[in-house]
């Protein structure tokens, strides 16, 4: 495992996994004062350079035993709102919590899990995609092992 730290996010990256810590790019139509918050992408497969925050462009390439993890920062405005009321990132995901209905976009065989919470004054979404049911037994334990290593600080709140 290697510690990867930037923009107020740090994580221990499992061997053979890929990790990106990026800041959301400005989009057409953004307000001039729009804040562009950081996000973390982790994957057990090669991520394409062009992909969406929720893994669009990457999840289509997943094999059944692959996993994609996104930690998305929605900033201080989202923090402690009803949707983000849970305090702290989940430290363990139950296999039973994964379903196709949790996916941002349903793809055949894939399962997903979404959690909304507030960490360090930031509204955070944890989004996990499994390539197939086999990953429930092979990759969910790995995700559960890395979740406690994800640390978010207030540093990333800066626009």
């Amino acid at each position: 495992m290697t510690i990867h730290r930037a923009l107020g996010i740090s994580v221990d990256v499992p061997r053979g996994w890929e990790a990106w810590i990026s800041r959301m790019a400005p989009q057409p139509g953004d307000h001039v004062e729009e804040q562009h918050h950081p996000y973390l992408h982790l994957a057990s497969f090669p991520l394409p350079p062009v992909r969406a925050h929720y893994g669009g462009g990457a999840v289509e390439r997943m094999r059944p035993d692959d996993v994609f993890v996104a930690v998305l920062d929605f900033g201080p405005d989202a923090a402690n709102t009803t949707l983000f009321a849970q305090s702290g990132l989940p430290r363990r995901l139950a296999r039973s919590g994964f379903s196709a209905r949790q996916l941002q976009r349903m793809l055949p065989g894939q399962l997903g899990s979404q959690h909304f919470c507030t960490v360090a004054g930031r509204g955070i979404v944890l989004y996990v995609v499994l390539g197939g049911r086999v990953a429930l037994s092979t990759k969910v334990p790995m995700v559960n092992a890395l979740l406690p290593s994800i640390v978010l600080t207030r540093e990333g709140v800066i626009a």
Partner: protein
Amino acid sequence: MVIEAVVLLGLGFLVAGLLASYSGLAERVRRVEGRAPQQSIRPDAFALSPASGLSESGVTIARLVGQTPFGDEVVLPSAGVDHDLLVAFLSSGCTSCGSLWADLREAKLPLLPEYLRLVVVTRGATDESPAAIADLAPSDVDVLMSTEIWDAFSTPGSPYFAYVEGATGRVVGEGTALTWTQVLALVATSSGDGTVAAGVGRDLAKPRSDRERENEVDLLLLNAGILPGDPSLYPTPVTEVTLRGEPS
């Protein structure tokens, strides 16, 4: 006649003196700016020849850690994965790198095998300008900036290429090349895949601006949850719509 010869000789000395003076001045400016002169590999010094010039350092690299010119912090695994890695060490200043960058941007890179991932690595932000690299970088190939990666591979200069075996992270081939076709020879030798050298161009005719526009539109659609094949991308043609009140 003699006078003309003397004048010409004098002018020759003058030009030579100016050139020498300019060269010294340029070197001093580089030192003042704190930038080491770009070390460019002479093609004849490290000519890539699968028969003779290819070397194998045997160094093991577990991962590549660096920053993209756009500020992303990235960890890419190079060991314990089921794909191999082709690391292309390029720089913004080396003359020989210019055409390699251009071919990447214009998608004139020969088709690489599916088991191979290409990653371009430049020196880090203290040695290279992120803005200059961002301008050179293609949108559909990973580009990392990291002097540490250069040091880990003991990269002698640029352009330079290393082939990393994904299962072990071992550098099984390295050398220099001036064209991507020559790089394929390195790949063919390192991977033992003789079919690689017959690689064909991908999207040869598509200009950079078109590909960048496509990538921007793709990203907007992806962020809106519209993936390839989404039915909304293929609306019913107007001719097939039956207007209310009109006989069908």
